[in-house]
């Protein structure tokens, strides 16, 4: 049997699996009967105070109660804390009002009603963090400058992660390709603006994580451009697309060249990744963008996996799965617990960040899920 025959057999077999309407109804009745017979849960469903409050203002059968209740909380917050929030706008880490500023930003994020609005809110927060970082690093040396710089750059990296996550959701869900293209361009421009700010920051240690995150966001954006270019939606010329993909390819190659793999397996994988990049370059020269992009994605995945494995930089307790292509002679999918390779200061940093978030939640009594 050939592979095509097997795939056809699979498709055909799937379609032959029938579910008779009679059986379907019978099983439905059985399920509903079991639900009737089941005892109700011993603990009654907990209804948060603000949902019950929203019930008095919103009809019971409307499923937008959580939205209405968030609006209620936000309205109460605005009435009582407007002056405080206004005063906190320019606060930097270390200022007591900085918590208020962060809290207001998170609230704006959580009441956003769409993935696009959340992505935009995240990007705006990220841009603020970048501006704060620049400002912090330009002031005179102080006792907490390094720690505060690390705090802000970590927050910036987290926001960029958030942007990537929201954008991926938009990419998967948005049916309007033109709208998606507009969002992609907006995020692209804002990330570029952040990148322009960063070189001015003198502390390179803080930058490493942030730069990695901007690269991840840019990769997702470029992936969208490639899909949309192939669908004929985005208005880039072929030359522009080739230029963008080439720039990404060169960046991945630069990253690959900096890796120093220790094990033989890793060296082989790195060699394979570089080979894939070479093939991608060749397809780009032939203006075959789709295959070039596929090769580039594969190479990127391998190199990212190797980077995490070799250079560490992940949180303690996090497992790492490296997918190794099966074209290599001896291949396994490796997982493992990586040790925390960051300095002890990062543990303090993470604790500080967590305590700030907990404090913000407590202050505004918003249930953040």
């Amino acid at each position, binding site marked *: *049997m*050939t*592979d095509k025959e*097997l*795939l056809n*057999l*699979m*498709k055909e*077999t*799937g379609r*032959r*699996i029938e*579910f008779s309407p009679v*059986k*379907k109804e019978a*099983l*439905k009745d*059985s*399920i*509903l009967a*079991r*639900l009737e017979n089941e005892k109700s*849960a011993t603990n009654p*469903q*907990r*209804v948060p105070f603000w949902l019950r409050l929203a019930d008095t203002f919103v009809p019971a*059968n409307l*499923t937008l109660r959580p939205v209405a209740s968030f609006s209620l909380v936000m309205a109460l917050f605005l009435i009582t804390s407007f002056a405080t929030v206004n005063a906190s706008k320019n606060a930097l880490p270390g200022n007591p009002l900085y918590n208020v500023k962060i809290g207001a930003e998170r609230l704006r994020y959580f009441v956003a009603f*769409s*993935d696009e609005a959340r992505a935009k809110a995240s990007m705006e927060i990220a841009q603020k963090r970048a501006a704060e970082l620049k400002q912090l690093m330009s002031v005179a040396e102080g006792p907490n400058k390094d720690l505060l710089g690390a705090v802000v750059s970590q927050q910036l990296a987290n926001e960029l992660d958030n942007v990537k996550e929201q954008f*991926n*959701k938009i*990419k*998967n*869900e948005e049916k309007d390709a033109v709208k998606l293209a507009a969002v992609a361009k907006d995020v692209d421009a804002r990330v570029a603006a952040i990148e322009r700010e960063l070189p001015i920051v003198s502390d390179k240690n803080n930058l490493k994580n942030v730069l990695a995150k901007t690269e991840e966001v840019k990769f997702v954006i470029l*992936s969208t451009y490639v899909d949309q270019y192939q669908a004929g939606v985005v208005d880039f010329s072929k030359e522009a697309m080739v230029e963008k993909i080439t720039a990404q390819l060169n960046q991945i190659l630069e990253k690959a060249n900096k890796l120093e793999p220790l094990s033989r397996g890793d060296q082989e994988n790195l060699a394979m990744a570089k080979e894939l990049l070479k093939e991608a370059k060749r397809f780009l020269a032939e203006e075959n963008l789709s295959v070039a992009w*596929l090769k580039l*994605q*594969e190479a990127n*995945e391998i190199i990212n996996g190797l980077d995490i494995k070799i250079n560490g930089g992940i949180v303690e307790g996090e497992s790492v799965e490296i*997918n190794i*292509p*099966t*074209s290599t002679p001896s*291949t396994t*999918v490796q997982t493992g617990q990586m040790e925390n390779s960051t300095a002890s200061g990062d543990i303090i940093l993470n604790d500080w960040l967590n305590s700030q978030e907990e404090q913000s939640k407590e202050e505004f009594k918003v249930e953040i*899920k």
Partner: protein
Amino acid sequence: MLKIKEQILIGRIRKQDRNAFEEIYDEYAERIHRFLYFRAPTAECDDLLQEVFLDLWDYLSDGRQKQVENLKALVYKIAKNKVANYFGEREREKRLVELGEITIQEESKLALVPDGELDLQADIQKIKKEMEGLENELYREILEMRFIDELSHKEIAEIIEKDVGTTRVLLHRALKQMKEKMNNEK
């Protein structure tokens, strides 16, 4: 993001509305039946299907659960876990059979196939045998979801909890590996 209709149905289920749950059952029962039929013994499909939807009800009706991002992916994930648990139980029962602690009658129930479905079962076994040659369990899962269940890249990505780009790459590798395997066997 959930469709508006699904959001409304879930909202009603949170209030223990069985009619809303029926609509979700009508929407997904056939697909889940196909999913289970391919992966589990035919005789167990009906029970497993019921278990899947009962678990789905428990999840959706519990107001303490976090918001559902993708209902289809959730239903398939529950089904996937049911199959995995079933085979975990079956391994334990096999060991008990070996130890003589389960009767022959119970053992034969585990392998029962209804009349009239032998051709279909034979093809399913043929497919499974060919897929055994693939080294990576995830590759098999993705190929089955794509070609048996006819799920989209996006849907598969949600179920296996990876992004769409990675899923496409994994599918590409799975197909490549299958092709190499078939070519080697010629």
